[in-house]
């Protein structure tokens, strides 16, 4: 998970980002046990580093951790990145009552699902480009 806290004000440091003058965007990857699940996580990291939003813990939503759930509820826009049509990230968020603004499914972008967990940087870059086109 990206070591960054976003404040709703706009000030920022390397670790704590304040966004008083911008929308809070939460990025939730499924991070599942497949190539596309792991790619979803890596793409979320890249998006967070590019400043698209704040990467958050999808599993923390499922675990009902109050800080993570409330952080999601405090978002103005939620991006769920799922590896496959099981849509675990989207379903987890919606099960917690958090509406998903944008759901991206990597297999629907032409990335074939398998259980090879050795992900190449080129695969992440390819997926990132496709995801970015959807945003």
């Amino acid at each position, binding site marked *: 998970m990206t*070591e*960054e*806290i*976003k*404040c*709703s*004000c*706009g*000030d920022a*440091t390397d*670790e*704590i980002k*304040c*966004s*008083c003058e911008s929308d*809070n965007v*939460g990025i939730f990857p499924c991070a599942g046990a497949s190539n596309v699940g792991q790619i979803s996580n890596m793409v979320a990291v890249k998006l967070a580093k590019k400043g698209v939003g*704040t990467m*958050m*813990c999808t599993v*923390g939503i499922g675990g009902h*951790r*109050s*800080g*993570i*759930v*409330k*952080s999601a*509820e*405090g*978002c103005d826009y939620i991006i769920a990145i799922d590896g496959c049509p099981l849509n675990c990230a989207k379903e987890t968020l919606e099960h917690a009552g958090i509406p998903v603004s944008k759901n991206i499914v990597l297999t629907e972008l032409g990335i074939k699902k398998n259980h090879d967990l050795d992900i190449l940087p080129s695969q992440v870059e390819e997926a990132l480009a496709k995801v970015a086109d959807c945003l």
Partner: protein
Amino acid sequence: MKIEILGTGCTKCNKTKEIVEKALLENGVDAEVVKVEDFDSIISYGVMITPAVVVDGEVKIAGRVPGVNDVKKWIS
């Protein structure tokens, strides 16, 4: 009761503290109000966006300034 205001000292964080103190005053509730600004403490709650309010260890809101009535519900 312990109320922690999580944030980096920004405008919204300061506003949140004001609102919490207003709610306590109006409801006549005595509580320890603490501002928490260090990263490690904030992240320990799983909070990814601030300001946030923690009442007796439970995060009540994050990323938004609460209303006075919200705080009154949490402290009642």
